[in-house]
């Protein structure tokens, strides 16, 4: 019901906005000149922090420094799929853990508030397990402990898509 209204409102608003925007567009004649960034010379350009990616590629995934400094990986709604960003981050952890065999790693799975509490406990565990499996298959050789908090420990309690995004996560702790 609300979704339907939301959709219709979005269509309505976008119609109004395009109506306004097209008026403005007529006055704008030349687009902003694009500046070409100066390329930095870096011996590790295509293998920043051993990730196999360039800094730009990392940045495109929202990773600004060493991927191993990222301790949280995120998921889509009701999903346990590991996305590209998570692969890079978990790959970095796996490489480190591989050199420190037997490290105890705690993987805490979480869900957003949507869905029932019991289902979310199961979903949080699934996410933690998927991360554990990823580390194992990347030969991390770590001693993984998984635990699910379901929707019980959100990092952001707002009822917004961005809050939900931040709450659907696995925290890697060691």
């Amino acid at each position, binding site marked *: *019901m*609300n979704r*339907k*209204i939301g959709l*219709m*409102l979005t*269509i*309505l608003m976008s*119609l*109004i906005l395009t*109506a306004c925007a097209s008026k403005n567009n007529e006055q704008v004649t030349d687009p902003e000149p694009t500046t070409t960034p100066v390329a930095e010379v870096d011996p590790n350009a295509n293998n920043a922090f051993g990730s196999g990616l360039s800094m730009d590629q990392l940045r495109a995934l929202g990773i600004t420094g060493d991927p191993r400094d990222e301790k949280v990986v995120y998921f889509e709604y*009701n999903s346990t799929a590991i996305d590209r960003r998570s692969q890079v981050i978990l790959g970095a952890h796996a490489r480190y853990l591989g050199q420190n065999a037997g490290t105890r790693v705690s993987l805490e799975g979480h869900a957003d*508030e*949507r*869905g*029932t*509490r*019991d*289902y979310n*406990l*199961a*979903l*949080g*565990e*699934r996410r933690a*397990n998927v991360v554990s499996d990823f580390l194992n298959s990347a030969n991390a050789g770590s001693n993984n402990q998984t*635990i*699910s*908090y*379901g929707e*019980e420990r959100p990092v952001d309690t707002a*009822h917004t898509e961005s809050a939900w995004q931040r709450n659907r996560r696995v925290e890697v702790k060691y």
Partner: protein
Amino acid sequence: MNKLTTLFVSLFFLVFSLQVDAQRLRGSAQASQIRATPIAIVPFKVLDDTQFEYQLDQVVANDLYATGKFDPIPNEKYLTLPTRAEEVRAKDWRLINAEVLVYGEIWSLGGDRYEVQFRMHDVAQDKPVGQTKRIPNLRKQDIRAAAHVVADEVYKAFTGRGAAFQSRIAYVERQQLENQRFRFKLMVADWDGYNPTEVYASWNSILSPDWSPDSSKIAFVNLTAKGPVVKVINLTDGRVEDIANFKGVNSAPAWSPDGQKIAYSSSQHGSPDIFIYDTVTRQHERISTHYAIDTEPNWGPRGESFLFTSSRSRKPQIFRYSLLDQSLTRMTFEGDENANASYDPEGKNIVLVHDGGNIVLMDPESRELMWLTNAKFDESPSFSPNGDMVLYMTEQGFEPTMIVASIDGRVRTRVEFVQGDVREPAWSPLRR
């Protein structure tokens, strides 16, 4: 000009879609057909100067209003205030359109002993319904309990349905002690939230309370350092017992109607499956083996089957498993997600959470859905012991709010005495 036309077209569709949804909801309210019965509950005469904390007639009125089957007439409209049969004149009540009349007295017997006597009157036929009823051996603080007895008797007499008002509710209250440090309390209260009592507390989340059929115990989930554990608390002696503390997630306990078994979900074999624990033999039996998430089992009225939530259809949907022939039936097809389904005690209706936040009733035979709510974040529905009301959580102005809705969708009342950061309400069976 063209854009204007598009605007009007989309406006038209917006209005149209609103109407369709309104119709869907109204359709659900119409399902009951019968209107609420106007009822007059005369303030009970107290036969000395005792001042009670609550007015008995008001408690009765609140109880009956919540069912959607009665429409209490405000006291100010009453032309007379009879307390005995010889003072009742039918025309006084016909004039204010009352169809049912309840009146009575509260006797003070000295030494904190009271007795309530009351009668019911059918105004249309102008004749009393049943004999004078007595509620003896009351203490002053029992006035609300006595009122619930009166409400139950009126409800049974005029609807032919079972009672509900002497039942209780369990729920979880979260108290913030300091920044990000919480105390979780399992609470028990009267059905209207009065007299809340803490029965168990933990520094970690408590969820999924479920009453034993004799209402002497509550099964629940408590998060621990190891993970979620299913526990049972005995309300008579306060003793707590671990039922399922296996590796992984143990959750969603549900007592069988005969009180001997507890179904729950456990991921001890890797994937969450449904298990049944026998409280007599203390054996755990694995029922489902699918690699999907299977959780939230809830028993059929005769214990011959259970409903559960499963992601084997990719998104969570409701399935029914028969313990008689091991058959599996998918129950829900409408909407992206359906979860947390449970039967009423007679098996006439199923209540569930639809698309993550609507409370919806389902006919177990036709599988037709009837929307009780259309908010975004409603959850944790449970039936009253007579199946005529549903208790659930919603959010009002960002505040968690506990609501009782009549199953005809006509009336929603806030559980008035429950406040604070509460969740996971569960309505008890009748006390035996």
